[in-house]
């Protein structure tokens, strides 16, 4: 089996000097694939994402991107390497306008960003109306859209989303998943955490179930969806 494009390989670690939260946890995603992480609250999903992004002290294991070991890289360096990330909480610049938020997403790009911005506005029309409003004044769902838009602006080589659909309305969620599929089909791997797990797993090529910082189940999206154990414990029956 060839090496996945992005892999967090048996990562162990926790916050600061605190106890380990991840225990030999592995998550990986291939080019053009969508990998979805699900699991109960506090299982360590977000922690795993942060570990992959270098925002955590990883005490064991490694992170590799396109074959390169990036375990020791700082988050900014990973951004430069082409990784984009939408955290679960405080994921927008509240005092900047919507448009400035998007511009900041494209901070490391040097080419013309106007097209991408139009695409984002097309995807989330509400943001176009609010482009000059401070992002902190938006509704919960709108903020979430800004956050995802920001990450898309990066035109990353790999996109990591922590619960991108939390709080967005069904119609926008559908749009969002559509867009995620589209992005994935352009060859960009997508790693995301989702609590809207059923929908997410439906479009996922690969699914991970994390429990207490460990890999509990791993399989294709479909496999996990039909697994009765997984359904009962994590997908709401």
């Amino acid at each position, binding site marked *: 089996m060839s090496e996945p494009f992005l892999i967090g390989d048996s990562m162990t670690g926790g*916050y600061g000097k*605190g106890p380990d939260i991840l225990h030999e946890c592995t998550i990986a995603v291939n080019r053009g694939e969508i990998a979805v992480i699900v*699991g*109960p*609250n*506090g*299982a360590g*999903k*977000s*922690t795993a994402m942060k570990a992959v992004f270098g925002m955590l002290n990883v005490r064991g294991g490694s992170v590799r991107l396109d074959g390169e070991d990036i375990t020791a890289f700082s988050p900014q360096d990973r951004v430069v390497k082409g990784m984009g990330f939408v955290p*679960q*909480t405080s994921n927008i610049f509240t005092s900047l306008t919507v448009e400035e938020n998007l511009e900041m997403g494209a901070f490391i790009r040097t080419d013309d960003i106007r097209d991408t911005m139009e695409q984002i506005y097309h995807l989330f029309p*509400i943001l176009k109306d609010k482009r000059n409003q401070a992002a902190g*004044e*938006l*509704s*919960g*769902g*709108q903020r*979430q*859209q800004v956050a995802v838009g920001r990450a898309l602006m990066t035109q990353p080589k790999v996109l990591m989303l*922590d*619960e991108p659909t*939390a*709080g*967005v*309305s*069904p*119609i*926008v*969620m*559908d*749009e969002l*998943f*559509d867009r995620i*599929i*589209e992005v994935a*089909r352009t060859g960009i791997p997508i790693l995301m955490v989702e*609590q*809207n*797990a*059923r929908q997410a797993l*439906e*479009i996922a090529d690969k699914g991970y179930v994390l429990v207490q910082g460990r890999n509990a189940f791993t399989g294709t999206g479909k496999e996990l969806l039909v697994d009765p154990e997984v359904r*009962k*414990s*994590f*997908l*709401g*029956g």
Partner: protein
Amino acid sequence: MIVVDDVHKHFGGFHAVDGSTLEIAKGSITGLIGPNGAGKTTLFNVIAGVLPPTSGRVTMDGEDITGLPPHTLFHKGLLRTFQIAHEFSSMTCRENLMMVPGGQSGETLWNTWFGRKRIADEERALRAKADEVMEFLTIEQISDLKAGEVSGGQKKLLELGRTMMVDAKIVFLDEVGAGVNRTLLYTIADAIKRLNEERGYTFVVIEHDMEFIGRLCDPVICMAEGKVLAQGTLDEIKANEQVIEAYLGTGLKNKDKLADA
């Protein structure tokens, strides 16, 4: 129980709530849905006294509560959760819960010096109650962690847990489900139902998860652009053309493409 009468809330020139009129029946579990930015949270904030309405009136059991501050409303039995979790981040999760009940005798300075016995007794009871709530929400393992250092979903659960610390009359839940594991969410739904049936709490629930709404709510109110768009049972709402267009949508377009690949 709650009557919202032609409430407007403007931010500068923007009409976030634009003439909403609705009624929440005593003992009901009312669902409040609508597209992002419809004004649901803003309406909650107006009812709960966080934001003064630009115009309009809110009454609770016939009493005008427009513009009353949140802490007064709390003591009248009106509780709410926040869409973006507002935990007390430097306090432990247990303390987050224990601080909730009003009228604790230990909140009076005099008693902290001269009524220590009574405080100790009250504290024991409170602690037991808090532990019980956390156990129910499956977050007992984080009870001694600082609330700022727990996962996003756990914060939302804590948020919900606070409303369970006191006997409320009416509870406004703003997307408690976002970011909460579905299996747990449905357990919570059962609990809400139980509170509603056994203790007669009234609930108003904002949620984008139709399954959750379906399990719980009757009636369901759909808002859009600051106004009430439709009202009825979930099935009625789901069948409403306007609601579908503005809110529910018709599902994934790309799904088939995905299958092709």
